[in-house]
């Protein structure tokens, strides 16, 4: 992945046949995946404006082409231990869920993988530190286990701000 330039995701050839495209990224030493169509772009973190009176996982807001976009610390939200302090590779994945833009703050972006649906296993063998409902499935790529996260569930679960969102 190029280091300096922000990446605009081109999704012309997504989901061919039974193949689904996943954007994989790193949180600490673990690999995670997200359906590519949910992601809009990947940027290097700009200065994030802190928003007071919000939950801890809300890092603040950034300006994405005139739109005020909240940034979520995914590790904080998922309850992962934060060891990686190296800021160089950190990225923000901008996702769009039903018109609501949210930025996910992650350690590094890996690659886009086309995975056949039958390669994806539902079970995680309880090996994961994540809650069951946050996981859509797992697959193996280059001997690495990639966990596909259920981003809607993560962002809009009860501990989140889902109620306010529904109100508006």
């Amino acid at each position: 992945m190029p280091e300096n330039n922000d990446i605009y995701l081109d999704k012309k050839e997504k989901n061919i046949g039974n193949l689904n495209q996943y954007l994989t990224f790193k949180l600490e030493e673990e690999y995670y995946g997200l359906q590519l169509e949910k992601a809009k772009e990947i940027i290097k973190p700009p200065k994030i404006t802190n928003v007071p009176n919000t939950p801890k996982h809300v890092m603040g807001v950034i300006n994405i082409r005139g739109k005020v976009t909240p940034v979520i610390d995914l590790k904080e939200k998922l309850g992962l231990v934060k060891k990686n302090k190296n800021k160089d590779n950190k990225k923000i994945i901008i996702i769009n869920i039903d018109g609501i833009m949210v930025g996910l703050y992650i350690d590094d972006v890996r690659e886009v993988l086309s995975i056949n649906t039958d390669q994806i296993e539902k079970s995680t063998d309880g090996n994961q530190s994540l809650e069951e409902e946050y996981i859509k499935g797992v697959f193996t790529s280059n001997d690495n286990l990639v966990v596909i996260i259920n981003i809607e569930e993560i962002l809009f679960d009860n501990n989140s701000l889902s109620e306010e969102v529904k109100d508006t």
Partner: protein
Amino acid sequence: MSDNNEYLEMFFAESEEYIMVLNDAILKLENNPEDKEVVASLFRAAHSLKGMSATMRFDVLTELTHKIENLMDQVRNNKIDVTTEIIDLLFEGIDYIEEIVKQIKTDGTDNFNLEEYLNKLENKMKQGKEQKVISNEEINYDLDEFESEIISLNEEEKNNIAENKKELDTVYAVNAVLYNGTEFKQVRASMVFKEAKEIGYLFKSVPDIREIEEAKFENNVVKMILISNEPKENIINSLGNITDVVEVNITDIEIELNKNKKTDENKEKNKKNNINKSTSKFEVSSTVRVGIKKLDKLMNMIGELLINKTRLEALNIDSEGFKDILPQLDRVTMELHHTVMQIRMEPIGVMFNRFPRMVRDLSKESQKEIDFIIKGKDTELDRSIIDELGDPLTHLLRNAVDHGIEKPKVRAKKGKDKTGRVELMAYQKGSEIIIEVEDDGAGINIEKLTAKALDKELITQKELEEMDREKKLQLIFEPGLSTTDEVSNVSGRGVGMDVVKRTIKSLDGDIYINSEKEEGTNIIISLPLTLAIQDALMVKIDQEVFAIPLNAISETLKIKSKEIKQVKGNDVIVLRDETIPLIDSRKSLNIEVGDNNYIEREEMSVVIVKSSGKEVGLIVNQLLYQQEIVIKSLSDYLGNVKNISGATIIGDGEVALILDVRDIA
């Protein structure tokens, strides 16, 4: 049928206007049954509404408005006296019209069972009907001459015809005479146009298409200039086949086009006709109807422009040209902003107009006598704010009538005038619009209110003891508090004062209440002139830049720590004999203060803000500069964040939050 949507929108906009005119006129008529002007305006509105519905082929609505028009006609001709019964009947009719229009909006049809109402109307009219209405005759006078007279053309039009005409074309003057008694003149005329357009090029017509759509069409002759290569006979046949077309006259005017003396005379004559007609019916104004969405888009774009201008300024390039252009750019942007803001402004009267009717119905229902006064109808406010104000004001007025004003007997006992007074006013104060709802009713029972708040555990006894009278009154805006125990069917729609407050706040406004027992209640709403762009003071709190809207600020000052006094354990300053509580902005924003208390600082920057109707001193780290900011929502994902009303984008492209000081105290 793609045009249809556009027409529908027009139809909705205009029918709403007419409904308002009708309601207004009936109210006036009730107070002034002899006023012929009002009767005439009622008749015209019903007539126009009928014309529009007929064009749109809403038959039920057409019939309803037609009957109402007939009733008004009888009133106009003194065949029926205006009684309360008639007024109620008319109001009922308007309600039906409103219902039907609503239904058309939802499913596009006007299927509505009106039989009962129409029968009632019919019966009422029979009582008054002795002679057959002969109003048709008036219109028909001189008709023969008018029917045969062809359209007149000016020089320019003649030249245009020559340009549009192809080699084999002939220029015809066609007059299609419609059956005098037709119910659907507008529809028939539109059909004539449609047919004519198929035959050839419809160059000009009297009335023109717009006049027909707006029902400015009184004669039953449609006159056209038609350029076509069809022979005369075919044209007569096609047009003659249209229902209710009784006669088609056609003249080849090519020869006449060359010698024009005669038509000039006709033109003069026709012109007079037209002028008489239009001035007697409507005032033609040179306005354009624009959808609010388009204006919103325009405003957004100006917002973007403004942000980019601010960013450009921040670059601060050291060049002559740059320094020349910036002030120019500044001026143009400001003017553009100002102009669009002006366009979005509308007199608040358009919304106030619905209330007299409502108050009348409510007071009748609850058997109260109420003098309802509206002031400041002309006060202008951003259209999008006006749209949002309808429901909260409805609620406040309902409250005033329902819970405020007492019944006449009770009032008499209290030594008050039997007739209660409810006043609705709007006026501008600085950069804010103030709306007041005032009544001289029973006032709010504070004891009852606080007892309830305690009961519902909204406040603790200790908190209550610390509250002053004013603060206690504001409790009424807390959710779940309504002072009357029984909920009446009038104001008990499940909307409480908390919803009113929430709506006002979402408009970036504020609301507070004053009330004296037995003297009445006064509710004051303050609103920004416009939503999208505001002047703000930028301040630094901790390490972040925040914007505080200027309209919330009364002044800024620097104080020394020794000026801080203590009252009941709270820090205050005394400013011009007023005690003003101090608040550390970092605490309101949950920023960890640590040991670094402001008291230890040598000098402090204080912004005096208006919060919940009171002045509060907000201590910030640094006063930066004043700037116009474009208000953006903080993101749907975050929802409502305490003490933050939105965000804006500042010079370096970063986001700065807008501080909501209204509840910070």
